[in-house]
């Protein structure tokens, strides 16, 4: 039985209020107005009054618009026929294909029992030394790309997606520029990956709150595929837009903001999505990579800050490069002991020396005399930036490690690096050009 109401008592922001009975918390409704039909969801019940957030926004809704409660929460279809398809943020086809109605599943389901998780064990190779050597990506990891607007985070996402060995790519766009949407679509198509991809795209032109559904839809579909033993990579871009939509609703609901207007549950809301990343005991996996733009290049802004606490590391993209400081993969130690015995040492040593290089640069900029050691560091830093950090470098991990030793040997003597003697005896390149 559908229940239909016509009397809207309040319209504020993108939230409408009706007097209704028998409505369940988080139930969906269809709102029909002069602007067309939109989905809305119950976000509060209070003494006979029901608040709903309207995904297409409240513009054009009249006090006598029709509200039809659907008796269920948000659902998406799930089947193989989703492959190669493109949908909007609420699951309506954006390509010319038919709508899919089979096998509906609820979104935003319960979390995985921690006792059923396993320790991630597979490295995801990307061919990017700043990732493979220094911040190894691991299957089932959840990792954001922190960057300011204008950085090539979408091309980076696309490149990782195409180079990673996964069964399925799910792309969730939130407030995506139309050009970027076309870029993703065309790149996936050109590389022959579109047929193993599913796109849920909310563009900047669509109503803002509609992007609230995107992560949940993507992750619900990903979860079903993972349960069918598929290795799924979920790309979300841009999660800051998602957070901003939550902020908008919270402010409309007159919630007390905790930090720069964001609701106090921002952490829990983001975590509920990111924690969907999983390596299932006896099934597949979900890896999540999410672009998170930092307003004002400020990593302490609530969105990147809360994200950083939730995700398993982050890649900082700055000046078109993945920054060695600030970037981090918390799962790297689960896999980098099994790659090559010198992996961890190269990783730590090269970063420590790069930090010293930065200090020397500072000294140099203040006009201080450069010692012999400083000159070695300067040489090292430049080579590190050109041969390791540059995003155009595309080499396998082992080759990158060899390159690391070479750069070290060209700039330093073994003791100067602080590397355990055991390793230098084995790996230090024989022909050393002393600095």
């Amino acid at each position, binding site marked *: 039985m559908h229940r239909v109401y016509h009397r809207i008592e309040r319209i504020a922001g993108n939230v409408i209020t009706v007097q209704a009975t028998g409505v369940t918390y988080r139930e969906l409704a269809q709102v029909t107005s002069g602007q067309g039909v939109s989905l809305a969801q119950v976000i509060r019940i*209070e003494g006979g009054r029901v608040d709903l957030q309207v995904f297409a926004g409240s513009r054009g809704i009249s006090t006598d618009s029709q509200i039809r409660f659907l008796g269920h929460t948000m659902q998406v279809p799930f089947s193989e026929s989703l492959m190669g398809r493109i949908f909007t943020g609420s699951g309506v086809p954006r390509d010319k294909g038919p709508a899919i109605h089979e096998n509906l599943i609820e979104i935003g389901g319960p979390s995985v029992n921690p006792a059923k998780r396993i320790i991630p064990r597979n490295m995801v190779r990307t061919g990017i030394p700043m990732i493979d050597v220094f911040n190894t990506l691991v299957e089932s990891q959840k990792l954001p790309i922190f960057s300011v607007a204008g950085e090539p985070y979408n091309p980076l996402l696309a490149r990782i997606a195409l180079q990673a060995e996964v069964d399925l790519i799910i792309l969730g766009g939130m407030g995506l520029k139309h050009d970027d949407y076309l870029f993703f679509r065309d790149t996936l198509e050109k590389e022959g990956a579109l047929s193993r991809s599913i796109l849920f795209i909310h563009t900047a032109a669509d109503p803002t709150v509609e992007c609230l559904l995107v992560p949940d839809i993507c992750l619900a579909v990903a979860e079903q595929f993972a349960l069918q033993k598929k290795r799924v990579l979920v790309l979300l871009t841009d999660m800051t837009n998602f957070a901003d939509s939550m902020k908008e609703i919270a402010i409309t609901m007159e919630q007390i903001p905790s930090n720069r207007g964001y609701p106090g549950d921002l952490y829990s809301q983001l975590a509920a999505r990111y924690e969907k990343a999983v390596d299932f005991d006896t099934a597949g996996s979900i890896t999540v990579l999410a672009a998170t733009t930092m307003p004002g290049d400020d990593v302490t802004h609530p969105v990147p800050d809360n994200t950083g606490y939730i995700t398993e590391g982050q890649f900082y993209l700055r000046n078109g490069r993945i920054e060695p400081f600030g970037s981090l993969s918390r799962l790297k130690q689960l896999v980098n002991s099994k790659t090559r015995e010198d992996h961890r040492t190269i990783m730590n040593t090269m970063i420590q020396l790069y930090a010293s290089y930065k200090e020397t640069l500072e000294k140099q900029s203040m006009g201080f005399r450069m010692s012999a050691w400083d000159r070695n560091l300067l040489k090292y830093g430049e080579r590190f930036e050109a041969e390791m950090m540059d995003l155009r470098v595309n080499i396998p991990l082992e080759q990158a490690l060899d390159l690391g030793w070479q750069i070290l040997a060209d700039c330093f003597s073994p003791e100067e690096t602080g590397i355990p003697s055991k390793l230098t005896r084995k790996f230090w390149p024989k022909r050393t050009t002393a600095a």
Partner: protein
Amino acid sequence: MSENIGRIVGVNGNLLTVEFEKPVVQNEVAYAALGESRLKAEVIRVRGRYAELQVFEDTTGLKEGDRVDFTGELLSVELGPGLLTQIFDGLQNPLPKLAEECGFFLQRGRYLEALPREAKWAFTPAAKAGQTVTAGETIGSVPEGIFQHRIMVPFGLRGQLTVDGVAAAGAYTVDGVVAKLRDADGVVHEVRLMQRWPVKIPIRAYAERLRPTEPLATKVRIVDTFFPVARGGTYCIPGPFGAGKTVLQQITSRYADVDIVIVAACGERAGEVVETLREFPALTDPRTGKSLMERTLIICNTSSMPVAAREASVYTAVTIAEYYRQMGLNVLLLADSTSRWAQALREMSGRLEEIPGEEAFPAYLESVIASFYERGGIVKLKDGSLGSVTIGGTVSPAGGNFEEPVTQSTLKVVGAFHGLSRERSDQRRYPAIHPLESWSKYEGVVPSEQVALARRMLIQGNDVNQMMKVVGEEGTSIDDFTVYLKAEYVDAVYLQQDAYHAVDAATPADRQTYVFGRIVKILKTKMAFESKDAARKFFQHLTQATKDWNRAEQTSEEFGALEARIEKMVAEVTDYA
């Protein structure tokens, strides 16, 4: 007990407004009916005919008019043999068992008994009929893994009780009655292997509380030597994300010199708990030769699990810690992260529309944090033995800024502060505890005058470093420069420690005393160098040799050989003038 039923009139996130008729109790447990299942909730405010309840589950699907059953009981946990090695959620549901029943996903409304009901425990009586006892005194014991698990007079019983009878030695389930006690009014109380206790009330069945004085070795050098933790003390680890809070707690949970470790994973990543629960069973505890899991218990309410249960989880953890303390054991409770618990309070406070304090945290945040850490302590039990609960909590300050309410409230009540620094973690100087800003009020494992000397060196080295940024290396005297290099040396070979190296990861107290003594001698040595480059080169070599030394087993030949090499190196630059 007669039924006490209410009806839902409002749903706002996990906050329910419920209309009731018969009396309700603040903080009592209630269940909201959702179809066939029941969602656990707790009364957190009462106004007129309406009670406000925080639900420990997702509330999707609840509606106006749905039934709520009040139980009249406060939120409690089961205490008895069989707790150790388990993995519970914040409400003490055993997660592996839940997985057996529900598969990959958690299922709301499913509550299981914490203690296995069929398992039998070999009870040995200790008390005798006719004896008088009080709450917390021992009736007998059962072996639980590597421990003698004391069966005690229920903590809630008041006054003197007379033992009417004690069961014979034999095998009993947790429900089995092992003693009958008669109180002053002649009422008989049955003692079972298991008792229940409300989590928000501290267990106080001991003789007296003592001042924490004895160091608790964590095997982390910078902690034990510079910012020590005491048995029964409290400490906090604030730090921005990625600075190493969790790794520090993980290594502490492995190596700390205590009987029992309770890990409370509160609102952080599930994956981190998985590392512990999958790795510990295979690791050997050097103290006992048994699996590390035998001394471990995990309370796991990770970030995507229900928020209200996150708040409950820290109380569940500390209550279980107090329970084992009552057996004369040293318990370490590691909570990661207390900020998530504070945020859970903030979320509820916001829904209750309470007047917000700073950063929208409730005004009572400080007192709640204080009373949590107050549950740590070392106590003399009624039989004269000592038991302790040491609490270490991480704090995750917004934006990494320590000037925020949770960090500040915590700093007021703890005995030691291990502040992690972004700068140090960026430089991969792990553990990234800031050596100049952190502090501890407790005694450490090495002589304090040695620590003072090293600290002075670190401060001076830092000053020289700051000065060099202004005047450059050429404007710095070679003596000052040597001080700077010495400070960097202590930092590199002593403060920094490789959490992933088999030997370096854990430095026992006696090794710390030994190694630190040697290093202090080096710091005190007057050295002469021809040039700054020569000085730098010397310290690079010395650092590498000392790091190799850290990686050598104390009992190995290599250990002695490296030490001799270090001595020789130092002798070569010593200025005997």
